[in-house]
């Protein structure tokens, strides 16, 4: 419920911004990188990649819908001298981040961001976890040309599991292309 409301609010903000703000900036980007489990004994390191669509509503506010997919490596545990492996999670999700600043454009940008999404964790032998996810982190944008920028980000992706969560630290590199203006 909370996820639905939050996503609806973000969507409305996005629509309102697009409808009313004069110079709206819209970009599209792809990213990929490494994903590390945080405080999870039963998951290995992995990779993550996806797409982002940053929409600059105000000079300092950007809303960025995203889609990502990740594959965590199997965890290996030596138990009583015998090595066992546990299937790593597949992490698929979508949502939106709110960015304090701008992603594209000329020059160098540094921006904090936070967001909410709906993510699904699946692994062999366990019912899937489909829950609200929260993201927060920091990003850098470096633009060698007016339309194209390199995006480097570090973020925590936290997927709620009842009273606890599964957390992943993601370090990604991406390219963003400004469609508008």
């Amino acid at each position, binding site marked *: 419920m909370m996820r639905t409301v939050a996503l609806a609010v973000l969507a409305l903000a996005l629509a309102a911004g697009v409808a009313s703000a004069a110079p709206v900036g819209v970009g599209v980007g792809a990213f990929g990188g490494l994903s590390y489990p*945080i*405080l*999870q*004994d*039963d*998951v290995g390191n992995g990779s993550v990649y996806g797409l982002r669509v940053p929409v600059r509503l105000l000079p300092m506010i950007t809303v960025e819908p995203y889609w990502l997919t990740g594959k965590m490596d199997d965890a290996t*545990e030596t*138990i*009583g001298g*015998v090595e*066992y*492996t*546990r*299937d790593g999670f597949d992490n698929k999700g979508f949502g939106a981040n709110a960015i304090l600043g701008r992603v594209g454009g000329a020059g160098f940008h540094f921006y904090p961001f936070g967001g909410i999404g709906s993510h699904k964790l699946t*692994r*062999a*032998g*366990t019912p899937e976890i489909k829950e609200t996810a929260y993201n927060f982190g920091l990003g850098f944008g470096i633009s060698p040309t007016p339309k194209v920028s390199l995006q480097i980000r570090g973020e925590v992706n*936290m997927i*709620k*599991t*009842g*009273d*606890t*969560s*599964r*957390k992943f630290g993601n370090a990604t590199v991406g390219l963003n292309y400004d469609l508008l203006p």
Partner: protein
Amino acid sequence: MKNLRWILPCLALVLFAPGCILTSGQFTLDFDLPDVTATSATGIVGEQIDLNDESDYKDHKDNVKDISDFAVLGTFHNTGLTDVDIEVYMTRDLTTLTDAATIRSTGIKLWGPFQVPAGGTKTIDWDASAALFTAAGKAAVLQEAKGDGNFTLYAVGSAGTYQFDVENGKLVLVIDVGI
């Protein structure tokens, strides 16, 4: 920007508060199970488990929130003449039952069935074993993890006449804890 002076500390306070979903983790506990021979219907041997034997559990026992994964690992030899479906039951206390009917009537089915053909040997891996964990068993183990941490496991055949051995048995639990 002035509002950020208040918003950011408040956000940090909420996120890092004890018991918050951010300050949590998943820790693996494993227990050696002794090699056993189970014979229908009164030759069953149980294994008493004390979660307090594991330091990760002792460190976080007051903040256990859930059991996120469970597996019974080991090599199963069916020394009988018919296929056997092996199940693991638990009693919530430390018990020394030997009778399969009593174990089924007083215990909680935790895991299984895992079929081993007559005369065959099968080693189960973690992924396959995790899928055999029952909902009732998960609830019972969680209650024990939140309680005194003591319970007893029994491996039995689901029906008929059977005899099987279990070698290099392990019990693996992944506990969800607040930090």
